[in-house]
């Protein structure tokens, strides 16, 4: 009987140690709000911006579709160890990004990632883009369209080039959900009614939009 009790108690302690405390979107939301993340990022969609001024008033990117945009392993890793995605401070053309994004500690990062990954939109349909090399997509991205004017990326031999006003696409293969990239290129104003990036839907052929999204899905 003592042995049974010991095994039961051991199992309980083991469970308490291995299960992260409060691993659920609701707990993540509490952390998100408690740490005042929503002072810079809004999480209730749809998009709220009605003007350029509304966009410029934001201190950080909207996250109401974060679960459709990001890849879970990257998101949790980034929250633990944030790296600079935009060389310039958000909404600035003159100030550098100081790289001082808050870092939620340990379990909090996991919980916040749980919460953010619960924020999805039906606008992003799964399985549209299969990550693979796309020579046509690379050609459009690098030569035919102005993508490299604002986004940094690494070429075949790892040489980094490109502008800095847009978020870097170095590491996009691990960071972004390729289906989100596709949905964004097709209907950008659904996500960002006012954005400094041109709308390419209606300019690029549907095939080329798919090719570009496929190419972005390979950027390391």
């Amino acid at each position, binding site marked *: 009987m003592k042995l049974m009790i010991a095994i039961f108690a051991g199992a309980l302690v083991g469970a308490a140690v291995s299960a992260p405390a409060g691993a659920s979107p609701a707990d993540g939301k509490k952390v998100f709000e408690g740490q005042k993340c929503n002072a810079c990022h809004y999480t209730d969609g749809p998009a709220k911006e009605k003007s*350029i*001024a509304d966009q410029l008033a934001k201190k950080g990117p909207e996250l109401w579709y974060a679960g459709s945009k990001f890849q879970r392993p990257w998101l949790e890793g980034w929250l633990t160890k944030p790296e600079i995605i935009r060389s310039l401070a958000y909404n600035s*053309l*003159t100030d550098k990004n100081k790289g001082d994004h808050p870092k939620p500690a340990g379990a909090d990062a996991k919980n916040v990632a749980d919460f953010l990954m619960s924020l999805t939109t039906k606008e992003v349909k799964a399985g549209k883009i299969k990550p693979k090399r796309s020579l046509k997509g690379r050609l459009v991205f690098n030569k035919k369209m*102005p993508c*490299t004017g*604002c986004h940094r990326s690494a070429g075949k031999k790892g040489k980094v080039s490109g502008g800095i*006003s847009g978020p870097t696409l170095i590491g996009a293969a691990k960071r972004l959900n390729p289906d989100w990239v596709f949905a964004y290129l097709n209907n950008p104003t659904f996500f960002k009614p006012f954005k*400094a990036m*041109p709308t390419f839907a209606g300019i690029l052929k549907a095939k080329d939009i798919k090719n570009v999204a496929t190419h972005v899905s390979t950027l390391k």
Partner: protein
Amino acid sequence: MMRTAKIILFAALFLPALFAANVGAAAEAEQVFKFYCAQCHGLNGKGGGPNVTKDFPVTPRDFTNTAQMNKLSDNDIRGIVMDGGPSASKSPLMPPWGKTLSDGDVDGLVKLLRKFCNCKGKPG
């Protein structure tokens, strides 16, 4: 006398509104320029926006260059803004903004660029 009074009344009522509308439109054009164009052309329009790093392969147009800007008509500028650099045999790094900006936005930008260059451009 009566006619003069009517003219004065008309001017008093409508000119301030017209002036305010022009000022508003100019401010809006400036905001559009800063938001979309300054990334490459710079906040002062001289072509030195933050994207123009050492590996940027072309030099964005300096809108304060009167001689260069005088070679373009207002419609040339409209076309390049809407359809991108390749529409005028220029770099594809100049994006096509036709699906992003309204006609009013583009008209405002043309006026602002004319202010930058202090020039009227060629007719057409």
